[in-house]
């Protein structure tokens, strides 16, 4: 029995690491676009806005099937994003304020629905802290499969529209002027983000999902100036953070997986900011001193 316990533990660890790695790959790659477009916090808004969708899906179907709840979350997150886009387009309210108001009020509405569900006495529904922090440890093989398939589709769509999305990110005005349907592309990119976020809700939760989009991308940005390499590196960093976070949290009891993954991703960012060649702080300091020395040599020679 002892051996079986260890085996089970090991098996769970592999499943959760695989799930976290896949999740990190998808969110790292797609997060690169959000970071480059200065929409890093869109992920935070979408993940909070998903709460009422989960509650409504549960109220309508009475089912706790993950796929149905995920669908509800995706629809609510998507509607929240469309609302954000149209408020920004139609008013003078700045992007960050719109994000803040949509994120908090959608979440508040979700909370209202949640108390409604609680009142109906359905005791075995998942708690709100699962939504907020996720429960990576409860990930099943089927969940990993779902993440793999849906995340894979999202990445393939990203690759198909590679050229269009690249233009959207770097020169929206030019893209519009040569006839690309900017608004449709914007919605496409955001929809891909929604997919990545909704997939991550169960594992790392709403609050920390935004970090999974931002951190790997920011780290990758330090190492390269090319989009292709940045997306690839971000995917790798995301996977690295997922696996290492899972392993670290499994070494001791009562270390939640989601936050550990986020801290690992943050550590990768810290390392990249300090040590990345060309852009990093160390490199910058060395270059600074070399310039100063050269300047001194030249002035003394004259």
């Amino acid at each position: 029995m002892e051996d079986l316990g260890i085996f089970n533990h090991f098996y769970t660890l592999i499943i959760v690491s695989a799930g976290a790695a896949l999740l990190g790959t998808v969110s790292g790659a797609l997060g690169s676009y959000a970071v480059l477009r200065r929409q890093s916090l869109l992920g935070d808004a979408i993940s909070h806005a998903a709460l009422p969708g989960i509650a409504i899906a549960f109220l309508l179907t009475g089912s706790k099937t993950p796929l149905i709840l995920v669908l509800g979350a995706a629809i609510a997150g998507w509607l929240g994003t469309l609302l954000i886009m149209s408020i920004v387009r139609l008013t003078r309210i700045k992007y960050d304020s719109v994000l803040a108001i949509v994120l908090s009020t959608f979440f508040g509405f979700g909370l209202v629905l949640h108390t409604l569900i609680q009142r109906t006495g359905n005791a075995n529904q998942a708690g709100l802290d699962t939504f907020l922090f996720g429960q990576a440890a409860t990930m099943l093989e089927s969940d990993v499969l779902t993440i793999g398939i849906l995340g894979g589709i999202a990445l393939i769509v990203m690759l198909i529209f590679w050229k269009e999305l690249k233009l959207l990110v770097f020169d929206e005005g030019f893209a519009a002027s040569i006839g690309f349907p900017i608004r449709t592309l914007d919605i496409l990119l955001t929809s891909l983000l929604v997919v990545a976020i909704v997939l991550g809700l169960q594992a790392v939760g709403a609050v920390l999902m935004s970090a999974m989009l931002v951190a790997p991308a920011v780290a990758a940005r330090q190492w390269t100036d090319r989009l292709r390499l940045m997306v690839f590196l971000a995917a790798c960093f995301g996977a690295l953070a997922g696996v290492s976070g899972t392993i670290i949290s499994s070494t001791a009891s009562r270390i939640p997986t989601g936050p550990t993954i986020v801290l690992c991703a943050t550590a990768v960012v810290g390392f990249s900011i300090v040590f990345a060649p060309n852009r990093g702080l160390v490199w910058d300091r060395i270059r600074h001193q070399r310039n100063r020395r050269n300047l001194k040599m030249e002035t003394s020679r004259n």
Partner: protein
Amino acid sequence: METSQIEIQLIAIVTAVACALPGVFLVLRRMTLMSDAISHAILPGIVIAFFLTESLSSPLLILAAAGTGVLTVVFVELLQRTKLVKADAAIGLTFPALFSIGVILISRFAGNVHLDMDAVLLGELAYAPLNKLQAFGYDDLGPVSLYVMGMILVLNLVFILVFYKELKLVTFDASLAAALGFAPTVIHYGLMTLVSVTTVGAFDAVGSILVVALIAGPPVTAYLMTDRLSRMLMLSALIGSVNAVSGYWVAFLFDVSIAGSIATMTLLIFGFVFLVVPNRGLIAIARRHARQKWEFAQTMLVIHLFNHEGLPEAEAESAIDGLHEHLSWDPGFTNQVVRYALNNRCVSRKETQLILTAHGRTIAQKTLVQ
């Protein structure tokens, strides 16, 4: 109404106003999401202070949490100053990391202390009146959180009144403020300290995520209604109070979370204002677009008539039945435009023809000169 109901509404109003006032400056300075970052990042501060004091309402806890909030701002700015990370990404990196530390601390030591995660994150206004202030031999001087939020409100009011001119200048022209010798950094950190203290004070009542609705909601709504800072501050306070009271009653009627209802009312009232406000509202925008369409068509019509006026072909060109062919318009649309122009007395009907009135001629001349 029972006393506790009145007390809850009072707490809600005071909290809403206290949050909305500094929120105005955050919204105008494009730093609204800093409130989101602070409200999440204070978690480790709350947890550590809670381990030390074992109470959720001790002043030390508020200080420690507010300190963590200011620390968040410092981290974000340090990251930005490396010029390697943009402002939004710096926020998106900092608060999840601090929040994660808080969550890990809670789960590591959850067995030893009683700290309800839901209470910290979501708050529960309904329980706020239960915690009474006891002093001077009286055991019921009103709810503690009313005193705490009241003091924070006064603090915010005093800060804004005393530094109104400085805040205004830093908000609208930071470089001019620096050039004139006002210290934008000092004002900035003063404001951020206020936001931190307010957030910490409010998390007890409404929880850390919905604080954002209180801070961002009323100022964003007021921003649609006015161009004056002073008016925006007053409107925000008013809207905040309306959100709070209406949210309370919705929660009471449907027996749901008060904080959640206040947030929901914030969205609904924002939506309502966005719909009907003059000039910037959706209805006003739609009407303006519609009017512009007809105005433009009418101008085209009078220019067409003006161009052929008094020339041999005028009769053919101005025949009402043939207008749509000359202007390449849809016949139905042409009829509507003719009716619109007739109503505005730009043209008049002469048998089967349309002729310009003096008013219509002036419009055509003016447009062509331009």
